[in-house]
C-alpha cells in the first residue's frame, strides 16, 4: 500500500479513529486503525467492539492495499506535522512497518496484520431515514446531560431514541434520565422514520456522533435495527451496538397535574443560582426557592460555611411555595434554554418539577426536588 493525502484530511480522519479506540485495552489490535487504500479513496476504520467508525477520505493511491497501525501514535504524528503538508503512507510488507513521510519528517511505525482487525458484523437494518444535522444535534445535545452513569441501571447509560406519539402526531424523540433529572426532546418525524424501533444509544456513541453533526447543511443517514444503530455522512460511517435493555416507561413519571407556574429569564436565574450556591459547603449544593407573588427568593443556608440570598423579579401568581433543588441540576436545565423564558411548573415540594422553554413542549425537562 502506498498513498498520499493532505495533512488536514488525514488529521480529521485519524482523530475520529483515535477517539473511538479504547485507551486501555488488552487486545493490541483494538488500539490500531485499519487503513485501506483503493481507487481514489483511503478509508480509516477503528473500533472498540461496541462502536465502529469508518472515515473515507480522498487520497492519491499509488498502490492499493491495507494495514493497521496504532491510532493514537498516527494521530499524534499527524497532529504535529505542519499545516498544508502532504503526507505519504507506505506499507512495507517485508519489514512489517508503515512509513509516514511529510517533508523532511520520516517515521516508521509497527503494524499488525489487517486480517486480525475485527470488522463489525453487518446488521439487517429495519429502518432507514435521513435527518438534517441540526435536528439530530438538538435532539442529542439537549438530552445527553441527563444520561446516567450508574452501572447497576445500565439501561439508563444512554439516550433512548424512538418514535413517539405527541400532540401533533408522531415525533422522533430522545429521552435520557438518571432518576434525578429527565430530558425529553422531540423533533418532527423524518420521512421514512415511522416504524423505527426504539433504541438506547450509548453515551460514548452520543459523544462520537456529535462530531458528525457540526455542519448545518449535512444530511445524516440514520439506520436502526434492534441491536445496532448507524449514522452516516458521505464520508463518515458510525456504527454502534445499542444498549441491550429496556428503557423505563418515562411517560408515567412526567407529571400532568403541575399547576403552579413560574416564568423567569433563564440566564438571570442561572446566574443567581450559581451565585448563592457559592456558599454551600455540602457536596449536594442545595438551593431553596421561595416563591411568592411575582417574587422568587433563592437562598442557601449551610451551618458550616454561611448563608446567601438573592431575590429575582419573576412571573408567579400561585400560592406561596418553598422547594429545594440541587444547584447543579438547576444550572444544567437552565442552560438548555436559549430563546425564550424558562417556565417551571411545580406541584409540591416533594414532587418532580417540570421545566420548558416558553410554551414549547418539544423540549421538556424534569428535575426532582431536594429536601432542604
Amino acid at each position, binding site marked *: 500500500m502506498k498513498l498520499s493525502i493532505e495533512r488536514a484530511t488525514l488529521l480529521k480522519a485519524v482523530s475520529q479513529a483515535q477517539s473511538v479506540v479504547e485507551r486501555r485495552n488488552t487486545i493490541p489490535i483494538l488500539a490500531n486503525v485499519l487503513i485501506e487504500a483503493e481507487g481514489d479513496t483511503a478509508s480509516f476504520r477503528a473500533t472498540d467492539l461496541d462502536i465502529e467508525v469508518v472515515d473515507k477520505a480522498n487520497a492519491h493511491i499509488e498502490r492499493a492495499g491495507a494495514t493497521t497501525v496504532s491510532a493514537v501514535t498516527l494521530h499524534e504524528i499527524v497532529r504535529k506535522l505542519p499545516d498544508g503538508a502532504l503526507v505519504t503512507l507506505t506499507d512495507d510488507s517485508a519489514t512489517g512497518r508503515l512509513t509516514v513521510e511529510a517533508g523532511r519528517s520520516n517515521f516508521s511505525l509497527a503494524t499488525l496484520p489487517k486480517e486480525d482487525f475485527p470488522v463489525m458484523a453487518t446488521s439487517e437494518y429495519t429502518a432507514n431515514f435521513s435527518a438534517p444535522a441540526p435536528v439530530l444535534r438538538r435532539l442529542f445535545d439537549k438530552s445527553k446531560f441527563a444520561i446516567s452513569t*450508574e*452501572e*447497576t*441501571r445500565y439501561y*439508563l447509560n444512554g439516550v433512548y431514541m424512538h418514535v413517539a406519539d405527541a400532540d401533533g402526531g408522531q415525533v422522533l424523540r430522545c429521552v435520557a*434520565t*438518571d*432518576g*434525578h*433529572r*429527565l430530558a425529553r426532546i422531540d423533533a418532527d418525524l423524518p420521512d421514512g422514520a415511522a416504524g423505527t424501533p426504539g433504541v438506547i444509544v450509548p453515551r460514548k456513541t452520543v459523544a462520537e456522533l456529535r462530531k458528525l453533526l457540526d455542519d448545518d447543511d449535512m444530511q445524516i443517514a440514520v439506520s436502526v435495527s434492534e441491536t445496532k444503530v448507524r449514522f452516516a455522512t458521505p464520508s463518515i460511517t458510525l456504527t454502534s451496538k445499542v444498549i441491550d435493555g429496556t428503557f*423505563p416507561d418515562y411517560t408515567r*413519571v412526567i407529571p400532568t397535574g403541575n399547576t403552579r407556574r413560574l416564568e423567569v429569564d433563564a440566564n438571570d436565574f442561572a446566574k443567581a443560582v450559581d451565585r448563592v450556591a457559592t456558599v454551600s459547603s*455540602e457536596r*449536594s449544593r*442545595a438551593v431553596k426557592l421561595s416563591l411568592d407573588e411575582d417574587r422568587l427568593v433563592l437562598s442557601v443556608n449551610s451551618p458550616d460555611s454561611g448563608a446567601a440570598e438573592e431575590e429575582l423579579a419573576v412571573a408567579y401568581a400561585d400560592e406561596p411555595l418553598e422547594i*429545594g433543588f*440541587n444547584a447543579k441540576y438547576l444550572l444544567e436545565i437552565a442552560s438548555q434554554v436559549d430563546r425564550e423564558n424558562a417556565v417551571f411548573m411545580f406541584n409540591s415540594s*416533594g414532587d*418532580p418539577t417540570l421545566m420548558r422553554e416558553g410554551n414549547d413542549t418539544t423540549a421538556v425537562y*424534569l428535575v*426532582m*426536588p*431536594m*429536601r*432542604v
Partner: protein
Amino acid sequence: MTDTLGVNMSALCRDCLTTFDTTGRCLSCGSPRVVRHAELLDLTIAHMDCDAFYASVEKRDNPALMDRPVIIGGGDRGVVSTACYIARIHGVKSAMPMFQARKLCPDAVVIKPRMSVYADVSRQIRQMMDEMTPAIEPLSLDEAFLDLSGTQTLHGLPPAVTLARLILRMRRELGLTGSIGLSHNKFLAKIASDMNKPHGFSVIGRAETADFLRDKPVRLIWGVGAATQQSLDRAGIHTFADLLRWDQSDLVARFGAMGDRLWHLARGMDNRTVQRNAPMKSISNETTFHTDITDRDLLLGHLWRLCEKVSDRAKAKELAGRVATLKLKTKAFKTLTRRVTLRDATQLADTLYRHLAPLLDVETTQGPFRLIGAGLSDLCPQDQAERVGDLLDPMAHKRGQAERATDQIRAKFGTDAIFKGRALR
C-alpha cells in the same frame, strides 16, 4: 523501661501508688510491683489495653471458668476474637480460625461474644478515664490512647500515678486487669503497653527511644501488615536500624506517604495527637457461614440481615453513607470487595440492599463463599441523606417510610416483632 539498678530513677508502687526514688521494693507497703524509670514522672502519652478483655469479663462473671482455657468466638467457622491467657499458652491467638483454635486447645470453653455486656463494661472504664483527662482516643472497646499532658496540676499527681490508679480501680471495681504503656508519643505508647502483658506497666523514655527501637522488627508499627511487610522485605528493611539507613526522600519515593511516616517512626517520632472521638469512617458487618454457600437466595438472605445491622448502627449514630460495599470471601480465602457510590447518601437497609444485591449477582459465579459482609462508608450526618427522590422509583419513598415504621415497632415490641420475608431466606 524498668531498671532495678538505676540511680536517679523515679519509682512508683503500683499497689499503693507511693512514689519514691530508692531501689528495691516499695518503701511504704513492701510490694515488689514497682515501676522505675528516669522519665517516669515526666511522660504524658499513654496507651491502655485491657488484658484478654472479652475472656476476662466472662471469667469474672462466671468464676467456674477462672482456671480453664476460654475462647471468645463464634461457631466452627468464625475466628477467635479473644483467647484468655490459659488458651494462649496452647498457641491460640486472636483472629485465628476457630477450627484451628479448637485443634490447638480441645479443652477450651468456647463462648459466643456478648457484645452488649462488653460495651457496658467498656463504658464503665471510659467513665474512669474521663475523670483523668478529656483527651481520650478509644481504639476499640478495650483499648484507648490517653494524653495526660497538664493533668498533674489538676490531680496533684504525675500522669504515671494517675494511670496506675486507673488500673487499680479497674481491678477493684470491675475485676479486670489492663496494661499501660507510657511514653512520649502514641506509636511508642502502643508498643509499650504490649511489652509486659498482662497487667503490665512499661515505659519508653525519650533517652532510650533510639536504642530501644534499633533492633526491633518494623512490623511493630501499627499499620504494617503482611503486604507492607513484604514490600519492606524486598527493600531489605527488616528492623528499625535498616530504616535508619534510608534517606527520607528515598523512602518517600519508594513507599509514598507511608515512607515519610516510616522515616519519622524510625527516629521514634510520631506527632499524631490523641484525638477525642476520632470520627467514624465506616460502618460494616460481616458473617462467616457454617458451611460454604453457593446458593444465591441464601446469600441474599444473609446480605439483607447484614444490611439491617449496618443500617441499625447508622441510624443509632445518626449517620448515613455515600458508598456501599459488598465483601465476599471465597472458599479459597480470596477476598472480593465491590463498592458502589450512591448518588444520595443513605442509612436505609432497603437502599443499601438494593445497591449491593446486583453486585452480589455479578460475583455469584466465584462462589462458594465462606463469608459475606456489607458496609457503608463516606459517612455524613443523617440530615444530608435521602434528600432527592428517584423519578423512576416512586415507591422508594414509601419503602423508606415503611422501614422507619418497622424500626418504631421493633423499638417498642422487640426485633422479632416484625421483619421482611427476605430475612427468612
